């Protein structure tokens, strides 16, 4: 490299800061932990009440399902994978943004992730919990299903088939849930110590004290902690890519036209991140307003999330176009029919709505003005939430309802119990998010402290 290069460094572009000026370690600690120690506003309990009612609906419909059998759902031949697999894939995809924010953006040293990683990780956990419920319930008798899912010596002397993507899925999702929980808890330990030290009564001190494992902020502890945290991020990165890849294998390894496609793994992973960022935006925009966290979750965060949504949305849109191209290029009768049936058949409305929600509406994010408007971002995020659900509906239902043999064609109609279960898991997800906000710091306090000016080490004093 020559010293007198003609390419002078460009001035750094002016960006909104990742934390509003004027904050110190002390104000950051107070602002975030006071949300937990303070009283919750009236709207909070009302919203929690609504979510809790939906959870009761979920319990009622699960009770009915276990009592009667999966006939209460609309799944039947030829569509054996209805709402339960659509919702399973939808929820697990939503979870992926949490891991992306906490692990991949950490490795890429994107410090804007700091104020959103904690609740994005919580979102991951709760979304995976909602997702995992569906395949278990789909077995109809979950208490008997254990030997189909996990390899253990049982009285029938039979073992699972490890050549099946469905068993890969069991390992992928349970590993993902476990590692996400570990990652989240390790990130919480120093903040739980802060909560312990700020506790206002004995009960709080005891509970946060036990959960913080006696953390005292020792330099040697921090040294090992940082090492473990970074390694967990490094492990979670390939893990999160593997999880949705394996979910896509559930489809791609099958031979049904519309499923049997090599584009599925990358397109599913991009779709998962797309859906997840939309859900983070859906939650973050109201939360920052309602809890007055604009200093910590700044416009910079929202703009960046808008950009990630745009990029992953383009990959997903590309996936839709490649599916059309592959169907034509294959020259295969069944593939071509599948595509024509998707676009023009009885379920065409779902495909066109999908293109509107995931393909066209997100293009508005090219405009800076849209990325800088909370309302517009929130609206686009809602379109994406709906669009990603439709995507799984299109893949599951339109592929299965007319496959190779016209004699076995049919239609799918979800029942009231399908809807109650789906809406119920949305209620469960929201109720868990509300409980998390009530009892744990929703922003990582110790990582926010590293962003304030006093955290910069001046070597001159050494």
């Amino acid at each position, binding site marked *: 490299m020559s010293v007198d290069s003609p390419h002078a460094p460009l001035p750094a572009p002016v960006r909104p800061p990742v934390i509003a000026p004027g904050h110190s*370690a*002390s104000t950051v*600690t107070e602002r975030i932990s006071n949300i937990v120690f303070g009283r919750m506003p009236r709207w909070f309990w009302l919203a929690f009440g609504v979510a809790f009612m939906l959870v009761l609906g979920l319990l009622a419909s699960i009770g009915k399902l276990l009592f009667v059998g999966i006939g209460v759902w609309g799944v039947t031949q030829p569509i054996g994978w209805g709402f339960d697999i659509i919702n399973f894939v939808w929820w697990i995809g939503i979870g992926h943004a949490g891991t992306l924010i906490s692990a991949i953006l950490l490795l890429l040293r994107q410090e804007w992730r700091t104020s959103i990683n904690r609740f994005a990780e919580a979102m991951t956990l709760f979304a995976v919990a909602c997702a995992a419920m569906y395949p278990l319930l789909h077995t109809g008798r979950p208490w008997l299903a254990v030997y189909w899912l996990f*390899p253990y010596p049982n009285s029938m*002397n039979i*073992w*699972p*088939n*490890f*050549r099946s*993507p469905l068993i*890969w899925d069991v*390992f*992928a999702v349970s*590993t993902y849930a*476990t*590692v996400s929980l*570990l*990652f989240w808890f*390790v990130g919480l330990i*120093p903040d739980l110590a*802060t909560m*312990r*030290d*700020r506790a206002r009564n004995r009960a709080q001190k005891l509970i946060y*004290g*036990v959960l913080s*494992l*006696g*953390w*005292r*902020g*020792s*330099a*040697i*502890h*921090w*040294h*090992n*902690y*940082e*090492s*473990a945290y970074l*390694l*967990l991020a490094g*492990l*979670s990165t*390939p*893990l999160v890519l*593997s999880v949705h890849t394996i979910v896509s*294998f559930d489809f791609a390894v099958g031979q049904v036209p519309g499923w049997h496609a090599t584009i599925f793994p990358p397109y599913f992973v991009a779709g998962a991140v797309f859906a997840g960022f939309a859900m983070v935006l859906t939650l973050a925009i109201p939360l920052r307003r309602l809890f007055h966290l604009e200093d910590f979750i700044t416009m910079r965060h929202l703009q960046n999330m808008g950009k990630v949504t745009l990029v992953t949305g383009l990959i997903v849109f590309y996936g839709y176009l490649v599916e059309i191209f592959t169907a034509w290029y294959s020259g295969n009768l069944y593939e071509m029919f599948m595509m024509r049936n998707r676009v023009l058949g009885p379920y065409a409305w779902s495909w066109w709505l999908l293109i509107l929600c995931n393909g066209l509406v997100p293009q508005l994010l090219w405009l800076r003005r849209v990325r800088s408007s909370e309302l517009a971002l929130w609206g686009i995020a809602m379109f994406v939430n709906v669009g990603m659900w439709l995507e799984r509906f299109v893949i599951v239902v339109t592929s299965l309802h007319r496959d190779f043999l016209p004699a076995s064609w049919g239609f799918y109609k979800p029942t009231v119990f399908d809807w109650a279960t789906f809406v119920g898991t949305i209620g469960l997800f929201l109720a868990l998010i509300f409980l998390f906000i009530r009892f744990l710091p929703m922003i990582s306090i*110790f990582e926010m*402290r*590293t962003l304030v000016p*006093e*955290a*910069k080490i*001046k070597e001159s*004093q*050494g």
Partner: protein
Amino acid sequence: MSTPNHGPELHGLLAEFDSASQLVAAAHRTHAAGFRKVDAYSPFPIEELAEALGHHHSPVPLLVLGGGLAGAAAGIGLQYFVSVVAYPLNIGGKPLWSWPAFIPVAFETTILFAAFAAVFGMLIVNRLPQPHHPVFNAPRFALASRDRYFLCIEAEDPHFDRERTRQFLLSLSPTEVTEVAP
């Protein structure tokens, strides 16, 4: 240096600092002065701090490597046992040990065991959970999880001397030096 003077009535001497920079500087000088039983406490991780105290390598990465290898072995072993030994089935005419199909599960168990090793390894190396520790006796120590920085020279250090060590700590310009009961 004088003969060590450590009664059972003292855990060590705790100096409090205003800023992270001061704490790092103090840690450097404490290490240079020959103290080895020293710990520093801060409300967020400071990369330079453990180095300043002479801790360079964390054992956690090796534990994670071990965990990952154990996970890979467990995943491969489990699938070999199930597919070849315990329940040999002809599936699509493939050999019993059709290993490419066994990569995904082996990959997941590798990650799972490595993650467990990272978390529990870190806790064991740090000797956590440890609900009580003498530094919690210091009245202002609760601020270590908020915005204050502490350095503790422990009485076990061979160079420790109640008076001289106090004088040494005061020379580092802390805001306060207190004795910590064991």
